[in-house]
């Protein structure tokens, strides 16, 4: 072995010491990456996102009907049935119906009858949700399927 090679070498104690610290840092960061996934839920222990809201005959034409405990307004107009989410797009409070449309109690966001923002801090319009017909003839709303304001279920 030449003298030059010796200079490049590190002695055994330094090697073991650096290896120990390096393995600690490496194992620690790997463990962190692994463990940070633990609190990220893979299963949501929540109410189903698809639910039945009643028979078409339960709804009057051109009125918004509130579905209890579901935070959804259902509108029946001459094109059919539509569902509008009542969850404010600002910070998740539940909007209530007013003369001009909808208003949020938490920070005063305002929406028109079509859910479009007319005032306040809300960043986007209220969401229209897909309405479909269940085999038993009841209407169903799917909270996870967003649709355009014009899409309606004709029955």
């Amino acid at each position, binding site marked *: 072995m030449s003298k030059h090679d010796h200079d490049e070498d590190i002695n055994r104690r330094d090697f073991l010491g650096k290896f120990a610290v390096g393995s600690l840092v490496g194992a620690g960061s790997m463990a962190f990456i692994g463990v940070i996934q633990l609190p*990220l*839920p893979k299963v949501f222990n929540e109410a189903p996102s698809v639910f039945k809201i009643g028979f078409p005959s339960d709804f009057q034409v051109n009125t918004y009907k509130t579905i209890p405990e579901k935070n959804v307004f259902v509108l029946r107009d001459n094109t059919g049935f539509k569902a509008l989410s009542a969850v404010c797009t600002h910070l998740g*409070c539940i909007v209530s119906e007013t003369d001009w449309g909808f208003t949020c109690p*938490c*920070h005063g966001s305002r929406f028109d009858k079509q859910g479009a923002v007319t*005032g306040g801090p809300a960043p986007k319009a209220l969401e229209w949700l897909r309405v479909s017909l269940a085999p038993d003839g009841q209407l169903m709303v799917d909270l996870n399927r967003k649709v355009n304001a014009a899409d309606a279920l004709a029955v």
Partner: protein
Amino acid sequence: MQNDGLKTFAENTKSLKRSLKESVRRYQWPPNSDREKSQVIFQNFFLHIQSARIHKFSLKPWYTMGLGLASFFLFLILCVTGVLLMVYYNPTTGLAYDNVRDIGFVVAAGKYMRNIHRWAAHGMVAAVLLHMVRVFYTGSYKRGRGFNWLLGMALLVITLMLSYTGYLLPWDQLAYWAVTIGANIAASPRELTDALGLTQYFDLGAFQKQILIGGNTVGQEALTRFYLLHVMVLPIMLITLVGVHFWRIRKDGGLSRPDNADEIIWREEGVELKNGSGAKGQFNLNTGKTYGLMALVRDKSPQLDKGPDNTIMTWPVGIWAEVAVFMLTLAVMTTLAYFFDAPLKEIANPSIPENPAKAPWYFLGLQELVSYSAFMGGIGIPATVLVGLALIPFLDRENNQFGVWFSGSEGKRIAINSLIFSSVFLIAFLAFTVKVGWLRSWFPDIPQIVIVFVNPGSVMVLAFAWWSLHNLRFTGSTRLAAIALFTCFLAGFVILTIMGTYFRGPNWDFFWSPSQWPLH
């Protein structure tokens, strides 16, 4: 031999009381000499975090006002009352609310303990904030104490998180909606990623929200997580950092005090110095001085024949002062708890928000800001303010006028000017937005990204930043510019909090008084 053994045993038994006492207390009692008094501090695990001697100036009540200690004592009170509340509390959505009601109506002393816990939590937030204000205005973050200022910032954030997590536990309407709002603030980076079209690739908002509440809506998972954070994770983090915070004060030479602290004490005590220059009667040691070789700390060393040393033994006077702060803190809390009951609203109802749904007072300024833009008010501005506060010791490195309120009369003048500027500006500006509205009232189709960046909150921050730079240019002093900026934000915090507390009603509309609120 057997006799001797029995005799020794009998003697040991007779002196059992004394030998037990000596094994616990390994110092002379009562302590008479300074050396024995220092042993009381050194030999006690809990007391040895402080130095054996303290400067007389540190005992002046108007300098620290005991705020840091009061914060710590409030934390101890919270630990004790919190453990007592845990005896009956179950963190499940089905039981939590009933448990809290039982604690209020059935459990012996339960209501009183919950009241103390509630007011001590509010008190701790207030004390920590005021402590930060004191440390800032006396310039106590200087001379190597920058890291301790950072620890203080971390402790402020942990204190706020403890309050926030504790807020959910009663599972009432206020709890549910305050936490729903908070969780959606965590999700608000989506406002930005949506505007930039990035959400489908990288949904930071959803990640933060799901890791915080373990779902898409506040439910059992959120309650479990908040309970875990509230009773385990955050208190352990807090107590660890408080230990380091205290230890650093000791290593930095005790509480901050002005350079002329000795002259102040000598003048008060009528000490006559032999020669005029003796007023400077100390010399600097680079390594610091030793107290009984227990620790090397940064400080000045007394010099012979140059005027009397103004430090006294911590035992017993310093301990008396600490106990006095504790008793005062406890007295205020028990009195408040006797006269005012902790509120409990109806059980959480995920369909009907409170109207108005108001957070606790210290978050109402924030709530006013999020009513302009969720992302900017909830994350952008608070993060800017926290980073700005954290950087103060590293951007303002002027080391004169340490330990002096407002760094002297010039600083006091700047502080008053800044108070007037920020109050007048912010009140006029808020009146303008209430009366005339903001961008969306004039241009209904304005893109959201413009509102995120140009809203009353960000305009306020820019105005304050401009004021501080203006002062920096005219005074040429980073300390005075820091005073200007800090005063502006302090006034901003107070004004926004008052706005959110007293002048916002249903639908977050402006009202002069709650008596004008419409029926809702």
